[in-house]
């Protein structure tokens, strides 16, 4: 897929939570085609300590309004600076980068999309695309507590949503891998993005139950296009760049101890 560098404009910055905001960004031109799982490299021009672009997964593309959504978790100086963008501010993005999730051929398959924390971001776009293609995606979202669960109204537009919270304040108490939906529905494929321990637990569950599983990795990146070789993951084919070979990997390719 052809990649672009675009000067875009922020149309909305919505606080979702103390630590998260949703940036909606538009362009004069029609947004390029992008696949769920792909990411952008955002230039952060108002933080003196931020040198590199920030890789952010695509949360959603609203074709009608020509808007790209980015879910930002305020972690360091760069993402805190991004959270200060206001409608009308310009942002320079490289997109679309990396590879998307694999969509199955058969519409009969039961697909489970598991997201944790900021890792729920690409699951919204994936769910939207799956619904558009005739699937009935099931979401399983995990968080520490109710206030950490975001965009529930958006998720519910595209499929059934189940939740787990560590404190039991919403959905089932515990971790995503203990949720009853895993025993109540026979899934053919699991997609997951979130903290690495969560993804490893999901991969372990999928592997033990012979369910196909794709994970989206978020290794630290510099260039985002396969030039610097900084974001490598160890795979059965040796070190590969997460930015160009991933960020989505089938768990069979990884060397995780699961």
């Amino acid at each position, binding site marked *: 897929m*052809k*990649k*672009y*560098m675009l000067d875009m404009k922020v149309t909305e910055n919505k606080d979702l939570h103390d630590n998260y905001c949703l940036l909606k960004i538009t362009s004069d031109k029609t947004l390029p085609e992008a696949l769920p799982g792909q990411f952008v490299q955002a*230039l952060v021009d108002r933080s*003196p*300590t*931020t*040198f*590199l*672009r920030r890789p952010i997964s695509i949360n959603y593309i609203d074709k009608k309004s020509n808007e790209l959504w980015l879910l930002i978790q305020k972690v360091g100086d760069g993402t805190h600076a991004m959270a200060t963008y206001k409608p009308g501010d310009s942002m320079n993005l*490289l997109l679309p980068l990396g590879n998307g999730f694999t969509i199955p051929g058969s519409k009969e398959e039961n697909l489970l999309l598991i997201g944790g924390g900021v890792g729920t971001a690409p699951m919204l776009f994936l769910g939207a695309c799956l619904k558009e293609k005739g699937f009935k995606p099931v979401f399983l979202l995990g968080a520490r507590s109710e206030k950490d669960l975001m965009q529930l109204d958006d998720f519910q537009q595209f499929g059934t949503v189940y939740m787990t919270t560590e404190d039991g304040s919403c959905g089932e108490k515990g971790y995503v891998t203990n949720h009853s939906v895993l025993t109540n529905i026979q899934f053919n494929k699991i997609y997951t993005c979130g903290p690495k321990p969560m993804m490893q637990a999901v991969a372990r569950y999928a592997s033990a139950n012979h369910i196909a599983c794709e994970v989206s990795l978020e*290794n*630290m*990146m*510099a*260039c*985002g*296009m*396969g*030039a*610097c*070789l*900084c*974001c*490598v*993951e*160890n795979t059965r084919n*040796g*070190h590969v760049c997460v930015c*160009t070979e991933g960020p989505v990997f089938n768990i069979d390719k990884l060397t995780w101890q699961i």
Partner: protein
Amino acid sequence: MADLKVNIGSLELKNPVMTASGTFGYGTEYTDFTDINALGGIFVKGTTIEHREGNPYPRMAETPAGMLNAVGLQNKGADYFVDKIYSAIKDYKTHMIVNVSGSSVESYVACAGKIAGLEQIPAIELNISCPNVKKGGMAFGVTCAGAAEVVRAVRRVYPKILIVKLSPNVTDITEIAKAVEDNGADAVSLINTLLGMAINAETRKPVLSTITGGLSGPCIKPVALRMVWQTYKAVNIPIIGLGGIANWKDAVEFMLAGATAIQVGTYNFIDPTVSAKIIEGLNGYCDQFGFKSVSELTGALDI
């Protein structure tokens, strides 16, 4: 419109702006963003005789105005380059220059010998300055005897343009530059990364798997500029200047300090079109100040 052509020995570049090894892949990674054929040259990723997996992740740490890397020369080896990559890049209308590295004199010679057979590769850049490999790399670049030995040996098997990339991690870079000039180098490129380190205060652990790594980006520019200036006064061969170049003014400064040409490195990650902007800016600068040829800038520092 000024004349932008410059010469590195007998190699004519259409303009002095090239991209640095390890920051521009094989050029192909950037074709969606910029016309790579407009560049003066592309220094492709460091190549060794053997396939190398590089260092374990994490290999990168961001710093204010720069970054540390500890990639460790990950590449698929010289045979893979010759068999698989060369055919895809050989017809670009710019000079494709291979950065050659090794862990022993023999491995440098073997790798340079393989690349010598490739018709469309007019030059190599001998990397005696990589700080991220245990054996070889920078070890050759930090002593005059080591630098002289590897350059002398490669010169015997490599008849085309031989550029030697120098390490800044030395007491006096001019001594190393003179040693490689005396042993047959056609040009020097400087500087490679500065050895640095990053620590995570919260975890009390080093950020990089190798603990130390190479610092690059705008933060190293003053050091690079100083070394280009010192080296310009010490040698007679052309200097290719690099280290933190992010815009045309930086490029002008390196040329005034004595560089014949420049390489853009880490800034390619921030702006994949930066080199095209620098070419345009150099031309504008020459027009504004009445330089008919960009080559007049080399060493034109007014002291």
